[in-house]
C-alpha cells in the first residue's frame, strides 16, 4: 500500500516535470519578443542587450528551463508583465475564488448526480428513467457559456431576481454573496450532475446484473437493502474516477462561467494572460492548474485503492 502510494507519487512528480517542460517550451514558441512585450518596446539597444542577458535569453533552452524550474520550485514564477506583481501573488488573489466556486459546484453535483443515477437505474425503462436520461444527455451537450447567458437573460434581466455579475465573499456580505453565486453554481453544476448521473446509471445497471446481487435477492434480502448496500457500493467505483476527473478539471473548467459572470478567478486570469501574452503568468497558471489536477488524480487513485482492495493485489 505504502509502496503503491510512493510509486504513484513518483509518477506524479515525473508527469509534472514533463508538464513544466512542455509549458516552458510552449511559451518559448510564442510569437513576439518577450522583452518588447515586457517593456513596451521603447528601450535603447543597450538596455535591450542588458535585459536580454539578464533574462538568460542568450542561453540554450534547456539551461533556461532548469534556471526557471529552480525558481518555480521555490514558488517564484517571475513577475507578471501585465499586473506588475509577482505571478504567485496574482494567482494567490484569484485561486481561492475559483476553488471556492468549484468545490461548491462539486459538492452540489455529486450527491444530486448519484441520486438521479440511482433513480433511473432502479426504475429502468419507466418514465422517470426516460426523463432523467434524456435530460442528462441534453445537459451534457449544452455549452456552458450559453447556459450562463441564458440564466443571465432569464433570472437577471427578465425577472430581475439576481445581480448579473461580480463576486463577493460570504463573510463580506452573505446575502449578496449567495445571490451572486447562484447562477455561476447552476452553470457549473449542471454538467456535473448530468455526467455523474449517467455514469452512476450505467455502472449501477452493470452491477445489478451480477450474480451476487441475484444471490442477495434470492436469499430474501429486501430490495432496498440490496440496491443501497450491496449494489451501490460497487457501482460507485467508476463514479469515483469520474468525480476525480471533474474535480481536477474544475479549476480550469470555470473559464466560461468566470467570463460570463465577470468573476475574478483563475479562468479569467488565464484568458487575460493569453490576451496580453503575459508569459510568466501563462506558465504559472498552466503549471498550477496541471499540478492541481494531477494531485487530484493521485488522491483519486489512493482513494480507489482504499475502497477497492482488488487493486492492491495487482
Amino acid at each position, binding site marked *: 500500500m505504502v509502496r503503491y502510494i510512493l510509486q504513484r507519487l513518483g509518477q506524479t512528480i515525473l508527469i509534472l516535470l514533463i508538464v513544466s517542460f512542455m509549458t516552458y517550451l510552449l511559451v518559448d514558441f*510564442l510569437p513576439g519578443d518577450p522583452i518588447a512585450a515586457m517593456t513596451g518596446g521603447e528601450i535603447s539597444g543597450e538596455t535591450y542587450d542588458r535585459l536580454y542577458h539578464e533574462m538568460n535569453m542568450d542561453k540554450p533552452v534547456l539551461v533556461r528551463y532548469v534556471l526557471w524550474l529552480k525558481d518555480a520550485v521555490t514558488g517564484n514564477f517571475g513577475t507578471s508583465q501585465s499586473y506588475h506583481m509577482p505571478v504567485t501573488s496574482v494567482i494567490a488573489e484569484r485561486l481561492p475564488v475559483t476553488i471556492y466556486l468549484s468545490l461548491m459546484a462539486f459538492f452540489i453535483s455529486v450527491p444530486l448526480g448519484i441520486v438521479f443515477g440511482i433513480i433511473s437505474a432502479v426504475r429502468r425503462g419507466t418514465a422517470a428513467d426516460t426523463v432523467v436520461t434524456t435530460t442528462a444527455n441534453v445537459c451534457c451537450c449544452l455549452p456552458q457559456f450559453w447556459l450562463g447567458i441564458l440564466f443571465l437573460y432569464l433570472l437577471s434581466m427578465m425577472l430581475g431576481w439576481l445581480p448579473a455579475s461580480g463576486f463577493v465573499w460570504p463573510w463580506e456580505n452573505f446575502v449578496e454573496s449567495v445571490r451572486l453565486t447562484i447562477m455561476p453554481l447552476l452553470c457549473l453544476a449542471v454538467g456535473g450532475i448530468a455526467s455523474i448521473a449517467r455514469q452512476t446509471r450505467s455502472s449501477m445497471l452493470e452491477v445489478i446484473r451480477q450474480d451476487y446481487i441475484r444471490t442477495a435477492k434470492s436469499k430474501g434480502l429486501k430490495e432496498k437493502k440490496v440496491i443501497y448496500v450491496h449494489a451501490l457500493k460497487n457501482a460507485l467505483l467508476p463514479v469515483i474516477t469520474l468525480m476525480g476527473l471533474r474535480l481536477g478539471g474544475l479549476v480550469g473548467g470555470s473559464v466560461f462561467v468566470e467570463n460570463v459572470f465577470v468573476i475574478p478567478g483563475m479562468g479569467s486570469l488565464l484568458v487575460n494572460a493569453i490576451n496580453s501574452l503575459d508569459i510568466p503568468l501563462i506558465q504559472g497558471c498552466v503549471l498550477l492548474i496541471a499540478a492541481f489536477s494531477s494531485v487530484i488524480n493521485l488522491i483519486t487513485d489512493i482513494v480507489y485503492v482504499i475502497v477497492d482492495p482488488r487493486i492492491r493485489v495487482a
Partner: protein
Amino acid sequence: MSQTNSKTAEQLIKEHKAKHRRQFLKTLFSRKIAVASFVIVILMILAALLAGVISPYDPNVISITERTQGPSVAHLLGTDEFGRDVLSRIIYGSRISLVVGVLAVMIACVIGTLAGMVAGFFGGIVDDVISRIAEAIRVIPQVVLAIALCAVFGGGIVNMAIILGISNMTVYIRMMRSQVLSIKERDYIMAGKLQGNSSARLMFRHILPNSVSPIIVTMTQQIGGTILSEAGLSFLGLGISVPTASWGSLVAGGRAYLLTNPVYSLAPGICIALLVICLNTLGDGVRDALDPRLRGEI
C-alpha cells in the same frame, strides 16, 4: 487451382463485409432517435454547403439603418450591432463548426492512432516516452490546454483544428495502445512476424485494419465535444476572429444586446447544443452498432 480458391475467398470476404455493413446500418437506424439525429445532422451539413443559396442575406453586409433589431419578417432572427442578418450569420457559422470539428477529429485521430500504435507495438522505452507525454498532456484540463495553445498558434480555422486536434489526441493514443497490446498477442501477427514482414507492414496492413471499429467509435464520440470546444474558444475571443461568423463568437457578440435582441445570443447557442446532441446520439448509435457484444453476436 489456387486462382479459383483465392477468388472465392475474395468473394466470401466481400459478402461478409456486405453483410456486416447491412447489419451495421440496420442496428444504427433501429432507433428512432438515431434516425432523427442523423436527419438533423444531414440537414445542418446541407445548410452549411448551401449557405450561399439558402441564407436570406449576405452575412457580412453592414446596414447602419437596421442595427440591433429584434426578430421581424424581414430579419427572422433580427440583426446584430452592425445591422447584419443574424439568421444568415448563423447559417454561415455552421460551416466553421463543422469544418473545424471534422478537421480537428481527423488530426487527433491520425497523430493519436500513429503514436498509440507505435507505443503499443514497440513497447519498452518508446512506449514509456509516448505514454508519459500523453499522460502529461492529459493532466492539463482540455480547455486550459486549448487556451494555452491558442496563444501559440493564434486563431483561424486551420489553427483551431490543429489546437483541438492536439488537445484531443491522447484519447486515441490510449485507445490504440491498448488495442495493439491485445492484437499483438494474436496468432496471425505471430505468423506475420515469422514470415519476415517488416514492423511497418505488420502495423499498417494487419493491426490497423483490425482496429478500425474502435477508431471510428472514438471519432464519432469525439466530434461533438470538439465542436463544443471550438465554440467555447471562439466565445472567449480566442478562436475564429470577429468578422467571420462562428456560433461561439455570435453568442459572445450578442451578450451586450440581450435586452434589445436576445435571440442574437441565444439562437446560435441552441444550434451548437442541437448539433452536439445529435452528433453524440449518432456516436452512441455507431458504438452500439459496431460493438458486437451489444449486438449479441459474441
